[in-house]
């Protein structure tokens, strides 16, 4: 069973008399342990797609299954809990909570669900170490560089041990060197810890690193571009670069 399964997903917005089809019949499966990149130009529907998979938004039509469950009829609080327990988010603009320091930002999603604070501190330290922030635990977001902030976001996404980490253009606000470091970090986490990543970009340079690339244009996946589909099983099993 695929972790994420989309069948004929559409999303349309009514703008006055015109209707914008942000997604136009998307079929997509993501397996556990995969590292998938959604490529596409601006306005092609990447964010819309990730928002639906991330349970932040609802599709207009089609079937969306996450971890075997259809989530179409869940209310806000149910979805909030699913997001909290099963999904990690990394945003283009980092989206850290400005008044919290690195440790507090990382532990935040765990505190929401009531994880005991003592055991948490140790795990937070570990995760921070893993993303290379061991020395910055007490820093506030505005005392960090863009790359460091995105590392905090990665740590925050990982600390809950989610089923999938969704990253919407996580490198768009970073210079190319830092971008590569961040992508390397995500690849490494995918390889070492078998974390499932789904991330979007319109930066062709990122392609070089990606194992499975799905192209999207005008709200549709472009046929025959799903590079990784054939070898998915093997990659997911091996977990090696």
């Amino acid at each position: 069973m695929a972790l994420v399964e989309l069948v004929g997903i559409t999303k349309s917005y009514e703008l006055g008399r015109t209707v914008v089809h942000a997604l136009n019949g998307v079929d997509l499966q993501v397996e556990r342990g995969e590292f998938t990149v959604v490529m596409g130009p601006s306005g092609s529907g990447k964010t819309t797609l990730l928002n639906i998979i991330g349970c932040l938004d609802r599709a207009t039509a089609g079937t969306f299954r996450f971890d075997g469950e259809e989530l179409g009829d869940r209310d806000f609080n149910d979805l909030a809990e699913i997001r909290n327990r099963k999904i990690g988010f990394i945003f283009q603009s980092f989206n850290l909570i400005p008044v919290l320091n690195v440790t507090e930002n990382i532990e935040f999603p765990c505190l929401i669900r009531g994880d005991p604070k003592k055991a948490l501190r140790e795990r937070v330290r570990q995760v921070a170490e893993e993303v290379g922030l061991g020395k910055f635990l007490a820093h506030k977001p505005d005392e960090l560089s863009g790359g460091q902030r995105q590392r905090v976001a990665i740590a925050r996404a990982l600390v809950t041990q989610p089923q999938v980490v969704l990253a919407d253009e996580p490198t768009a606000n970073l210079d190319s060197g830092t971008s590569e470091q961040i992508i390397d970090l995500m690849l490494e986490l995918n390889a070492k810890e078998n974390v499932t990543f789904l991330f979007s970009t319109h930066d062709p340079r990122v392609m070089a690193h990606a194992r499975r690339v799905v192209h999207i244009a005008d709200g549709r996946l472009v046929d025959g571009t799903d590079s990784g589909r054939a070898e998915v099983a093997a990659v997911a099993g091996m977990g090696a670069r």
Partner: protein
Amino acid sequence: MGSLLQIAVRNVVRNVRRTAITLAALLLGVGVMVSIRGTLNGLQRSMKESMVLAQTGAVQVHKKGYLKNVLSSPLHLDMEVGDALVKRILAVPHVTAVAPRILFGGMVNLGDQTLFMATLALDPKREFEVCPKRRDLFDARAKAFGTSADGMVITVELAKGLGAKLTEPAALLAPDKDGALSGENATILGTMQLTSPGERKIGIVPLPLAQHLLKMEGRATELAIAVDDLENAPLVAAALERALGPEFEVHTWDNVATFFKDILFRQDFLLSLIATVFLVLMLLGVANTMLMSVLDRTREIGTMMALGVRRSRIVTLFLVEAAVIGVFGGCLGGLLGSIVVAWLHVRGIEVTMPTSAVPFVIQPFVDVLYIVKIVCLSGIGALVFAVYPAWRASRLRPVQALAGG
């Protein structure tokens, strides 16, 4: 949840400028409210004291039904003022002095003028044990009241009406207890000021003179009673009622001088009105701050929602922030107000009431309970006024919030 509280407090501290503006509004509002309340407290205490110590005494005893007919100054509702009665009254705890009085409608004649005069017959010795400040209202010559058997004191207004030289021999006329007109020679010693509104043509005569005039030897219509502390007046009144029995009626000073109650009530009402306006203005400031905060932090709210924070927690977050500002601002305001009031207390404010030429000094004071009340009000009010902004924050759709609104 602890971390929400942490976030709330830190946001308050972090947004220095915005918080400072809101705090300043609260500080000023609460500070002004406490200062006004304190000044009014001082004013009301002075007014009460001058009322009690210059006119009414703390508690009054009459024959049953007297106060209902007070306008006609009924002489038949009188009592024998013997040692036994006085002793019984003095035996009640907190009572310090008793003074018998007769109130009656009479006339004063001077030269060819005869004027009606609300007459107050006072025991020259004991009256000033109950109302020591009464003398403060007398002019220099009137202070000799009590040294002669027929010396009387009249109000400035009455003296004006009489016109002629006050030193000429005068006469006191009144229907006696049985309704027959009676008269006594009298001397006008001097004049006195009035501090309360109402009847302006009043004369004060020695009690023995009036008793003789009215054929009421050894009797009185009113007993004015002093207590050690005005706070004890209701207690003493209740005890006296028990001690004296159903033949008598006992009233505390504020039930005798009902107009005074009205004045206090009006002052308090006005203050509440001002306070409410201040409070609402202040709290609108808080609401505005919270709304700005919600707008500023739309993306942060979206992030929290993405991370799994429930809507109710978002509401809580903003309510807590508002309450923190409200309570903190209220405390600062309470402190400022207390300092102002304490300073004014030491310094004293000299005022002259429009009804009187005698100035008195107000010493503002405020009780802790009032400050606690205002601080709570400020916190709760901030909470209430933050409900809408908080609700708006919680109603944001996650995608929309993440996109910045």
